[in-house]
């Protein structure tokens, strides 16, 4: 048999040494990646507010524990198999003197086949049973007394939140009370969609669950700490899927009750008559509700307490007067492809409308 190239033994050995050290370096580098990620995970917030390894709610905790357990098993499998591969690749490379002959031909071994079938099957059994347990614990959990019920309706590209227990309709910012593990007050979300598929994903609070038209779903969270938890839509839903952000405000019970009370109020009678008239004249009322007025549109977010929100466009930009102006003039400025059309207004009309909106606290 003709070899197309001849071997230079020293170059060959050098190449293999390089290869070996590169592989080891690679392994070390990968190890460094993984451990630094895990380490930063331990220090939750500093790395990322959406870190799945920084759970703060029972569903997220259950997932976290299962995933660490599994990572340990899979990590061990990787180390074993990779070491065998590395060893084989180094130990069994062809030496110069071996080129002319063939090694002993071994066709198989039934015992080995059995061994490396049975062992993986056992691992599968262990993993499956632990997984099934967590599935059941999260999906089949029963609602305790004192549960807050929220119906979340996903739209292209914003979130509607209804609190049937309180008669509150909000948008884009979900407020829930903190839950004491001793006496839990979780929030149960009933998930619906007004148009296409979406997915509710706030990693630190729970795994994601989809919102699918004609297919209601349920999920629950019981955050153990107050704070702002971030997430975003996790099922491609169209042009502005990327900016359909989630903000969950976990508050003390008092703060939550206060928020509910505010949201329950109708819009105060407005000193800005020009603005509220324009709100109707320019057809804003077709899509938006402002409770206490004649605007009862359902296609867009409820604006009764617009100024109680930190952001506009479901997290697209902070809720400042300047941004509000730009948004109302043309939402495509911040979120191109969003459903809200640009307004056909003069500058004066625009500032009057915005002045009116800014009274909606």
């Amino acid at each position, binding site marked *: 048999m003709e070899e*197309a190239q001849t071997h230079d033994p020293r170059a060959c050995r050098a190449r293999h040494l390089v290869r070996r050290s590169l592989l080891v370096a690679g392994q070390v580098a990968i190890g460094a990646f993984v451990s630094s990620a895990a380490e930063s995970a331990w220090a939750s917030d500093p790395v990322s507010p959406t870190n799945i390894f920084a759970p703060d709610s029972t569903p997220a905790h259950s997932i976290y524990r299962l995933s660490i357990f599994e990572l340990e098993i899979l990590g061990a499998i*990787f180390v074993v*198999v990779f070491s065998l591969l590395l060893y084989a*690749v180094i130990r069994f490379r*062809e030496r110069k003197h071996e080129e002319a002959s*063939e090694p002993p031909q071994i066709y198989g071994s039934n015992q080995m086949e059995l061994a490396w079938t049975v062992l993986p099957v056992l691992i599968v059994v262990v993993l499956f049973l632990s997984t099934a347990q967590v599935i059941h614990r999260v999906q089949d959990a029963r609602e305790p007394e004192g549960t807050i019920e929220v119906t979340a309706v996903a739209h292209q590209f914003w979130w509607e939140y209804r609190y049937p227990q309180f008669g509150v309709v909000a948008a884009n910012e979900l407020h829930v009370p903190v839950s004491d593990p001793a006496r839990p007050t979780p929030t149960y979300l009933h998930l619906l969609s007004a148009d296409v*598929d979406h997915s509710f994903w706030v990693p630190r609070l729970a795994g994601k669950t989809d919102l699918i038209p004609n*297919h209601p779903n349920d999920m629950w969270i019981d955050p153990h700490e107050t704070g702002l938890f971030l997430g975003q839509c996790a099922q491609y839903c169209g042009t502005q899927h990327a900016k359909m952000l989630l903000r969950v405000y976990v508050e003390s019970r008092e703060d939550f009750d206060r928020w509910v009370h505010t949201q329950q109020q109708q819009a105060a009678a407005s000193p800005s008559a020009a603005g509220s008239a324009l709100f109707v004249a320019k057809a804003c009322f077709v899509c938006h509700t402002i409770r206490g007025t004649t605007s009862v549109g359902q296609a867009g977010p409820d604006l009764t307490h617009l100024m109680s929100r930190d952001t506009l466009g479901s997290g697209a930009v902070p809720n400042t007067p300047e941004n509000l102006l730009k948004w109302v003039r043309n939402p495509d400025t911040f979120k191109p492809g969003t459903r809200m059309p640009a307004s056909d207004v003069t500058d004066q009309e625009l500032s009057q409308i915005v002045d009116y909106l800014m009274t909606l606290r």
Partner: protein
Amino acid sequence: MYEWLGTGDHKKIGLMYIVYALLFLVVMGVEAVLMRIQLTHANATFLSPELFNRLFTLHGTTGVFFVAMPILFGFGNYLVPLMIGARDMAYPRLNAFGFWMTAFGGLLLYASFFAGDSVAQAGIAPDVGWFAYAPLTATAFSPGHSTDYWNLSLLLAGVGSISGGANFVATILSMRCPGMTLGRMPLLAWMNLVMGGLVLVTISPLTAAQLMLMGDRYLGAHFFDTQAGGSVVMWMHFFWIFGHPEVYVLIIPCFAFISEIIPVFSRKAIFGYPAMVAATTSIGFVSLGVWAHHMFTVGMPSYGNAFFVLTTMVVAVPTGIKIFNWLATIWGGRIRFRTPMLFALGFLFQFLIGGLTGIMLATAPFDWQLGNSYFVVAHFHYVIVGGILFSIFAAFYYWFPKMTGRMLNETLGKWHFWILLIGFHLTFDSLHIPGLLGMPRRVYTYEAGRGWESWNMIASIGVIFQGVAVLIFVYNMIQSYVKGTPAGNDPWDAWTLEWATTSPPPEYNFATVPTVHSRRPLWDIKHPDDPDSKYE
């Protein structure tokens, strides 16, 4: 030229499939580069959301249907008749038909680029994602024809694939040379047999679902119309009943390449041939029962989720068995680190990791976090690029001499391998992390301050390396085709029938149809004192 247009010769058709796929591989690469540029920084404005959404849709659709399937059909078509001692595939004209259907499908898909206002904004190319979930594909949410381009081009390509699959099955069952019982045919033949059979039951559900979608969009049907009480989850079920076995359709021929290359470059017979056959066949069957692991977040009841966790983990067992058998083949061998073997070893390493991240995703609760995030993107690119593409490169370096009569340059090959390895790992190791930190997929941009930016930047840098590697490969192919070292019949000292004829083979493949007595006919000839037939 007309010879190529009208040919039914499996070798020419194989080469056409391969060249077609390579062209689309470059297109895919360009799409990927554009997307990675956009994603390097938070809140970037390099690409508009509309354009980005079209790009990822095209990238995925092209990758599966117009790169991976054709290239694997190409190699299969070229090699299967040679390796089973036949003169051609069972149905040469059907073969040509299948190729041209696939080819037209790809052209139709990309015609959408030009069928709109602006070529730079990608015309009306589809933007619904490669799995085109309902009701995003309904006329209400997808007005105009972009979705129809997706639907029709894949219907065409699907017919081409089914034809190809049937051809593989018929060829392998009905055209083997005397003495080549099913237990003696090369693993490549076995794996293409399983792949062909799988194609028949995998592509057809997609065809059915696409006919339903066409009904909805054109005839006013209500298959996925929630207003009429229809179910969009049903689309998901039908799509993934296709979509999951499809990835096995893609990987099984790659297993075939590895199963041919590792033995030759370890100088040992494949370890556990019967186990490899059994494992591959069971993967084929079990893969039909795992599809809803793509739907863990959809709200199936807990026992439904648990069932699919079980089947998905079960399919990992025969997959692992194969990895162990390859490892055992290398063990005790005499490894020659030529370029095909380097790529094969890269495959082993990366497929192992991809398989392990797959098990993470199979664990439904873990998937509730990881699903639809960049972790999934990293996982499937690990298997598709790190697994499938690496094994395809291995196959190129191994069989290019047979197809062209010339060796690919070994030095360039090694540069290609190492640079690709570095680039691949820079990009796809990094992309796991944003997934773990909450970054969903299919986003044209993302917020700063979530810890995603640096990993995205590293991933984008890796793309540069991968691009360079592919350029080196293309240069190698062209240069070697023109003035590579002549290969002769059997440059690798291998053992299967394709190496018994000239490089390239004559149109009729073999002067006389061979008769075989073992799994490695050429080993028997080279080692008359110790033939395989004694041990099988």
